């Protein structure tokens, strides 16, 4: 204590100096507008900088609370997501937009659900075996559709199994049209790529562009009109130059095909009986 007092007594002039300088600068900033403004500006800048630093530090310290809040929200959203997923699953199998459209188009048809049992590849031709047969009311020349589009046509029936000629068979020939334009042609497969088929005989005046939808025309009596087949990926000239050939990206994925429906349309029987009657009237037909 004594040393402190001694120190103060000995260097009193230093403290006096500091006090008088403080008085001088107070006078300076108080009564000289130029120096006062410079001082205020500089001090303001320093204060702003300090405030900014303080704000940054504070927000950094708040991160813990922000984080816990985010975790809470995340859990909430996860729960909500689960709930919605459940609700969607309860709604039924319409998980694919095309699927729902196909179901809509085939709403007035009686359908038989079937599973693909095996697929056969012979001489670069593909066949599909499904686990429904005559016992389930399946007859040859009934249409087969999958969730993503037309699959093929029933060819042979056993009691519990049926052989289907898919679109990816070179013997397959399906009457199709381009949606909206009513341009008709026959869909065939060239034996190369399971994903693509060709639609021939599209007239040259047809306005067809990429991504147009190809659907069944309804002419074959196997399929009702308007069932999704695929989308146009390319428009080519036919070999004779008289028409267009469309390369169609098939909707059905034949490499992973599992669940299909077999359409038992009553049109088939009706058309057949009409044909028979016509044949009776005109033996040449």
């Amino acid at each position, binding site marked *: 204590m004594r040393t402190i007092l001694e120190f103060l007594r000995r260097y009193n002039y230093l403290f*006096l*100096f500091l006090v008088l300088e403080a008085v*001088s600068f107070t*006078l*300076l900033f108080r*009564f000289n507008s130029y120096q006062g403004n410079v001082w205020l500006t500089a001090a303001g800048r320093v204060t702003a900088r300090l405030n900014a630093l303080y704000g940054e530090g504070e927000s950094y310290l708040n991160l813990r609370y922000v984080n816990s809040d985010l975790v809470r929200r995340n859990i909430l959203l996860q729960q909500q997501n689960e709930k919605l997923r459940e609700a969607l699953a309860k709604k039924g199998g319409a998980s694919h937009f095309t699927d729902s459209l196909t179901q809509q188009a085939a709403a007035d048809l009686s359908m038989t659900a079937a599973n693909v049992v095996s697929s056969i590849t012979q001489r670069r031709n593909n066949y599909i075996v499904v686990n429904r047969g005559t016992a389930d009311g399946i007859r040859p020349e009934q249409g087969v559709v999958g969730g993503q589009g037309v699959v093929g046509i029933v060819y042979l029936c056993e009691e519990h199994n049926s052989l289907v000629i898919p679109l990816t068979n070179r013997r397959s020939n399906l009457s199709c049209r381009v949606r909206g334009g009513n341009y008709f042609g026959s869909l065939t497969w060239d034996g190369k790529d399971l994903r693509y088929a060709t639609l021939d005989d599209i007239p040259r005046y047809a306005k067809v562009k990429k991504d147009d939808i190809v659907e069944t025309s309804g002419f074959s009596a196997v399929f009702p009109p308007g069932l999704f087949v695929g989308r146009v990926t390319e428009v080519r000239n036919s070999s004779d130059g008289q028409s267009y050939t469309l390369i169609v990206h098939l909707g059905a994925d034949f490499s992973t095909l599992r669940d299909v429906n077999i359409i038992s349309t009553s049109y088939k029987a009706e058309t057949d009986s009409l044909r028979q009657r016509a044949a009776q009237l005109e033996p040449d037909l």
Partner: protein
Amino acid sequence: MLQIALRRLFWLILLPLLQVVVFNHVHLWGYATPMPYVYALLILPASTPRWLYVTLGFTLGLFADMGSNTPGIAAAAGTASGLSIPFLLHLFAPKEFDDDTTLLPNVRTLEWTGFLNYAASAVLIHVSLFHIIEDFAFYFPLQLLINIVGSTVFTLVFIALFEVLRNER
């Protein structure tokens, strides 16, 4: 002793008055302003307590400020001068006066070289601080330098003049 005190008081009153009335209005070539009131601090006896140096420096500066309407500038510079002058006196005084508190700083005791060095250092400190605080920025460093050098030289001329006059009497 009393005589010395009275004489110093004479200078302590005369110089600020001269500063306010005459020297504050002199701006040689727009740059050099003499501030010879520092002389009143320079000739104080070595026995003067340091707090008195500081206080007198502040008071002289404040007085000069009042005359030029620059409150605080000369006061701040004067206070700093008051703090530094005892150290400078000790630095420039001949060795034989090191422990002699009866030393009276003048051209006889310090001789012209010592006295002018002593005065020049003190004036340089005072004038530099004055102009730096007045500018309060370093936008025009060259002009600031010319102000400082010009004012220092001008002030020294007056101080030498006072010293001659004081010793002739």
